[in-house]
């Protein structure tokens, strides 16, 4: 069966069909078409995941097989990671559509149509093996995402948030396109494997470095790595909950995946000798992103912005993992991405429930108002523990694997960054859970954030939590937990990582149709003792931070005042930088590209 | 490089600068239309007639049209004082 093309053709056709039926459909009918289509995509992705367990699946569109080792058509080249990420994407899209069932009446098919197009774009992006084709699907997902982010047109921030999102990400696509132009000028080909093959015959000169900088920067804009991250908090704070779920759970991570894909398949054959330098740059950038994201996360009162900054923090962690360029690092990051994606999506869904039940998004204003909805509170705490990477959550396994990789490659100091990031984000969520659901620290004198008057997203009685909102949230949280309990999961991911990082093997399979060589077996994985120790330390630190956040204002005396003043002095510039001004964001973006370019130029020459 | 190509390239460089330098949107839409046309000429000179046709229909017809209707919509909003708040 030809599954691979159907993974994008099905949602595209469903989107076309829905629009053609147009105004004749009410919401239920639109949902009844969109949801099965998304489920079909999900099933296809799972099937692809199973089929690629021991190798690659290559699909040539239009039946254009390579001729004498030269790619003529466009291929999907699917490995475990591509299929796995596509599965995560489609799963979250299904969840988003389920949540949509309670969403307030908008003119029906448009939301579903955009969601399906968004899904098709992301899935196609994960599966594609052709650089320009990746760009096309990237644009499809971006355009759908811009519209989805601004979907709540009645709210003022929604407009500004999606405007910033659209402008910065569009400039990101221009960077990618310029990079493609450079590579095409040098190699004359577009297939990733073929680019790798062709680049390996030439030297490392300005063109290769500039092309890599432009492509990586373009993808990292989508991933929201500092200093490209500004748009993310604006956009995620305003997107409708069902959309936010997909944004936070998968879209940012696609940028990280893409950097790995182009490195291993296209650039490693030429630049592989400079892997050490790349490692340093990526790990430093990741660590910086993680710290900035975590600090900003802890400072937020607006719950969605809090989760948005947590997303940025974890993007930094994943970049550290990818930056290791080893099976442990990449595999750890991959497992972490999936488990954390589910956990974060669950947290966004619970915030949606709070918004529905209590009409608010400000932590301070909601203080104590969550007492009547304890089950939602439990889900939030589960989400916080997933952030803390506690065993047996999937995040724990991912983090343990990542830590092994860091120790092995001599980046032990980065473990501290991982630990702090987990502790701070988890502490922020625990603080919000305790304040909202238990009413602790309700006497905090600070001013609540202004962006609180919010329209309810969902229709229906605010006195009840609709099942279609609660069950997805609980299931996502449970999924994050269950991922760590599946036996053989870590080993399978490690195998996938080895395949992902084996660029030459991939090229042979794509261009010459050879079957991939079998990789060295993976030993059964048990997390080392220190991983448990780190987890305990993280949780302890998180609890301390949460308590400090809740009751810190009650402290009197000179040291407390001094600390508060120090905090203010450090945080004021950080807040000021996140200005919401589009011109600022673009200026930082350009500076970031120049910085990455400079770092790569020094490293690779 | 032929003289036509060089001339078209310089025209495009000047045109792009002019588009950015024009602050008033309606006038800018007009300049952008001319810029699109110059790009079209350049692409003919680059032996890419398909792209040239596309660029001319998009850059000097569809795009300015879209900008003009957007400007007129904004003006109407400003005149009637329609805001959501």
């Amino acid at each position, binding site marked *: 069966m030809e599954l691979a093309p159907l993974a994008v053709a099905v949602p595209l056709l469903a989107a076309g069909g829905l629009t053609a039926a147009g105004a004749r459909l009410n919401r239920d009918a639109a949902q009844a078409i969109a949801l099965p289509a998304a489920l079909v995509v999900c099933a296809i992705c799972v099937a692809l995941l199973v089929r690629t367990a021991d190798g690659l699946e290559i699909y040539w569109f239009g039946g254009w097989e390579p001729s004498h080792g030269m790619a003529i058509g466009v291929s999907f080249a699917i490995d475990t990671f591509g299929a796995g990420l596509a599965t995560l994407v489609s799963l979250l899209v299904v969840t988003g559509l389920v949540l949509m069932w309670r969403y307030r009446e908008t003119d029906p098919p448009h939301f579903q149509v955009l969601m399906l197009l968004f899904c098709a774009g992301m899935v196609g992006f994960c599966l594609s093996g052709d650089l320009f084709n990746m760009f096309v699907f990237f644009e499809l997902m971006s355009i759908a995402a811009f519209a989805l982010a601004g979907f709540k047109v009645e709210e003022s*921030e929604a407009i500004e948030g999606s405007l910033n999102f*659209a402008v910065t990400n569009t400039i990101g696509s221009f960077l990618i396109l310029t990079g493609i132009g450079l590579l095409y000028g040098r190699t004359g080909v577009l297939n990733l494997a073929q680019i790798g093959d062709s680049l390996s015959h030439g030297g490392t000169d300005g063109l290769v470095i500039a092309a890599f900088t432009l492509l990586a920067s373009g993808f990292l804009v989508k991933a929201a790595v500092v200093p490209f991250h500004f748009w993310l908090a604006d956009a995620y704070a305003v997107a409708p909950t069902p959309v936010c779920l997909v944004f936070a759970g998968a879209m940012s991570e696609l940028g990280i995946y893409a950097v790995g894909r182009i490195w291993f398949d296209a650039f490693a054959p030429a630049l592989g000798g400079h892997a050490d330098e790349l490692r340093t740059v990526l790990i430093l950038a990741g660590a910086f992103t993680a710290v900035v994201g975590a600090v900003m996360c802890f400072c937020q009162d607006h719950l969605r912005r809090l989760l948005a900054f947590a997303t940025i923090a974890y993007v930094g962690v994943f970049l550290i993992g990818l930056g290791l360029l080893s099976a442990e690092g990449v595999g750890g990051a991959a497992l972490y991405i999936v488990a954390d994606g589910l956990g974060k999506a669950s947290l966004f869904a619970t915030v949606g429930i709070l918004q529905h039940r209590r009409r608010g998004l400000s932590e301070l204003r909601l203080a104590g108002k969550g007492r009547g909805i304890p089950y939602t509170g439990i889900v939030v705490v589960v989400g916080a523990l997933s952030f803390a990477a506690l065993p047996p959550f999937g995040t724990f396994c991912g983090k343990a694997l990542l830590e092994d990789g860091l120790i092995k490659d001599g980046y032990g100091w980065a473990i501290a960054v991982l630990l702090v990031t987990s502790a701070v984000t988890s502490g922020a969520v625990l603080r919000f859970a305790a304040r909202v659901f238990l009413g602790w620290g309700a006497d905090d004198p600070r001013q609540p954030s202004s962006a609180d008057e919010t329209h309810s997203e969902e229709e229906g009685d605010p006195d009840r939590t609709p099942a279609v909102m609660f069950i997805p949230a609980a299931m996502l949280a449970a999924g994050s937990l269950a991922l760590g309990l599946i036996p053989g999961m870590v080993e399978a991911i490690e195998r996938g990582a080895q395949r992902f990082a084996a660029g030459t093997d991939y090229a042979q399979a794509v261009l010459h149709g050879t079957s991939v060589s079998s990789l060295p077996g993976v030993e059964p994985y048990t997390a080392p003792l220190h991983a448990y120790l780190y987890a305990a330390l993280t949780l302890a630190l998180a609890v301390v931070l949460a308590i400090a956040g809740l009751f810190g204002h009650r402290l009197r005396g000179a040291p407390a005042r001094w600390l508060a003043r120090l905090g203010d002095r450090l945080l004021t510039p950080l807040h000021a930088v996140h200005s919401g*001004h*589009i011109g600022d964001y673009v200026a930082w973006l350009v500076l970031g590209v120049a910085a990455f370019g400079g770092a790569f130029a020094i490293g690779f020459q | 490089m032929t003289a036509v190509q060089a001339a078209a*390239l310089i025209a495009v460089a000047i045109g792009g600068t002019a588009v950015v330098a024009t602050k008033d949107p309606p006038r800018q839409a007009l300049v*952008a239309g001319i810029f699109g046309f110059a790009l079209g000429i350049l692409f003919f000179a680059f032996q890419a*007639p398909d*792209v040239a046709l596309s660029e001319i229909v998009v850059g000097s017809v569809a795009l300015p049209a*879209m900008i003009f209707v957007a400007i007129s919509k904004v003006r109407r909003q400003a005149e009637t004082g329609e805001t*959501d708040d």
Partner: protein
Amino acid sequence: MSFLPYAVSAWLFLVGLAGVVRSRNLIHLVICLTVIQASTYVLLLAVGYKTGATAPVYADITPGRSVTDPVVATLTLTDVVVEATVVALLLALVVRAHRRFGTLDPDELHEMRG
């Protein structure tokens, strides 16, 4: 001389970026983005050009002749469509922003946000 097309491409990218950063009007900003996009067209088509070649249309030339690269033309075609769509979507957002805030100046817009 042979570097001129690439220099023009780089120039358009930078000028467009400067326009975006310093823009006082969101519609102006959107049009500046099209200038950046034009930079990518110029780059792609300049890369695929061959001296003395004609367009790969065989209705009026003999098959043996040197032709320009059809792939860059295809890429640029896609690029042009992307431009049109991005502009349409951004203009819709700008119109909404104006309706909401009554201004098109990014400076005032972000003050309102506080």
